[in-house]
């Protein structure tokens, strides 16, 4: 199950500057664990208490995984996974 994972600028320090990495897994959680096994520390920036960190968006192809099962969202061979920083804020 090979997928391409696109890494945002802020997390490229974990991937030796690479914009994308290959990974395997059949769910988003498995893909993140697989990336973390070779780029230690990146998981802590993505996942908190078994849920996705609110500061990041993760997509499988065009789908925000928050709407399709979160970390349990399924990933198929050839899918592309995109990680983006969530852009948000407010007056407080």
């Amino acid at each position, binding site marked *: 199950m090979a997928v391409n994972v696109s890494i*945002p*600028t*802020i997390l490229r320090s974990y991937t030796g500057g690479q914009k994308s990495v290959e990974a395997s897994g059949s769910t988003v959680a498995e893909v993140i664990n697989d990336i973390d096994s070779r780029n230690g520390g990146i998981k802590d920036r993505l996942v908190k208490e078994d849920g996705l960190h609110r*500061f990041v*968006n993760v*997509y499988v192809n*065009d789908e*925000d995984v*928050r709407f399709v099962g979160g970390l349990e969202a399924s990933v198929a061979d050839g899918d592309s996974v*995109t990680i*983006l*920083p*969530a*852009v*948000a*804020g*407010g*007056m*407080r």
Partner: protein
Amino acid sequence: MLVIQRDLVDRMVAHARRDHPDEACGVIAGPEGSDRPERMVEMVNAERSPTFYRFDSGEQLRVWREMDAADEEPVVIYHSHTATEAYPSRTDISYASEPYAHYVLVSTRDPNSYELRSYRIVDGVVTEEPVDVVESYMFAHTGGDDVPDGE
């Protein structure tokens, strides 16, 4: 320092005024490494709120892909504060995660004048920077074009 063309400043302020009292937000893309904001994209505030903003995640994916395909990056990320000053809030700081972006805040609390300020926000540290509004980048002494080609 943020060097930015006046027409882009005017458009950010117009966007903020139009969405007032809700917060407005958007991005200005520029060529990778140029530090020059060129292409403004007004984003939907998915929260439609006077106290909070969030890029719609689907729209953000499309816009970030467009930038990637055009070798652009987000040079400016802007949003408005509609009742407070143009200074990053704790929430703004906690979310800021584009290390090369200028975070621009526009305050529309005064109906007769606006306040526009720019910041770098890296690892939770806010640094305000001067804003140089220029009529055209052609004559402004900044950006990648001014760096002599190294051999």
